[in-house]
């Protein structure tokens, strides 16, 4: 196979120019200003977390590709259910858990601001997350019958993502804008 060789880095002769009017990285963009947007990126704070709730964050685990591989027996063996990460200090003062504080491995239910529900999902009480957010690995909490192994394992961040925000400039969607409440899963 032979194709046309194009330089991909400076060492190969690639010219370090950008497709902007100045051909440089533009922190201040006249094009954005002309289109009626902030020419300099301006920080817009996210919505405040309602009392008693947590911002729902989601992400990936290295062995699972989107929602498709959790049903694979070998990959599913490495991570067979997701956990909801909650900050250790936040877990100690969690409303509804005064009698029996939340521990790693306890099963909980997640309900979002619109009443969408997912779980039961194991709690992971950890220092590795801030106190006002919880985290889920994406790709779990499936309900499809055909997913015979991964069905009903963990919680679905998708089911809890009933709202999203749209970036006014480039149209990208922000999905970590939902809030959840944590309650103990009935045994």
């Amino acid at each position, binding site marked *: 196979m032979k194709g046309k060789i194009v330089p991909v880095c400076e060492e190969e002769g690639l010219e370090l120019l950008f497709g902007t009017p100045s051909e440089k990285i533009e922190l201040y963009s006249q094009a954005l200003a002309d289109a009626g947007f902030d020419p300099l990126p301006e920080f817009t704070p996210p919505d405040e977390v309602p009392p008693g709730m947590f911002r729902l964050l989601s992400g990936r685990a290295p062995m699972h590709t989107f929602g498709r591989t959790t049903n694979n027996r*070998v990959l599913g063996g490495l991570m067979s259910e997701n956990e909801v990460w909650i900050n250790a200090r936040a877990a100690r003062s969690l409303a509804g858990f005064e009698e029996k504080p939340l521990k790693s491995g306890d099963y909980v239910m997640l309900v979002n601001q619109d009443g969408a529900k997912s779980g039961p999902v194991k709690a992971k009480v*950890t220092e590795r997350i801030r106190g006002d957010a919880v985290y889920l690995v994406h790709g779990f909490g499936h309900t499809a019958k055909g997913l015979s192994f991964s069905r009903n394992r963990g919680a679905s961040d998708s089911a809890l993502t009933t709202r999203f925000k749209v970036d006014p400039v480039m149209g990208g969607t922000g999905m970590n804008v939902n809030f959840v409440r944590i309650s103990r899963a009935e045994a």
Partner: protein
Amino acid sequence: MLFKNYRTRYAMVMDTRRCVGCQTCVLACKAENGVPVNGYRDWIVTETKGEFPHLSMEIRSERCMHCTNAPCVTNCPTGASHFAKGGTVQIDRALCTGCKACVAACPYGARYVHPDGYVDKCSFCMHRVTKGASTACVEGCPTKALAFGDLNDPSSDVARLLHSRTSKLLSPEEGTEPNLYFLV
């Protein structure tokens, strides 16, 4: 090779700074060695220290450490667990009765019982190494966090890494003299 007047001492060096915990090493091993669904010859340990947001984390890819002073060998009543080529610790499946004395003796939890009745663990991929290849986990690792080779050969990857970096052993107080080193 010029210097042949040493005994081969196979060892592994695992870089906790490079590892991202992706578990490719675990999958590579399972595929290479036909490890059953609920068994593992290698696994990942993640340790977090501190309180948010002042944290540090260490990720280790662990497996049998092919101890120089291996309690699994001395506690095996049938001779199935034995020292072999390059100082590695191997299991003769035909001799293993599945009594699990070795499982209890190993301080690192390196062994599991195979559904076929014998005990199994990491072999340092001797079937590959004797053909000149490296172990499956070393070849699979995308961050080059794992190195395997002869500790007694000063030009080997493992010898060079241990020479230039700070390393530690797990539970050295057990006196097992493990041959899996962790770069910190």
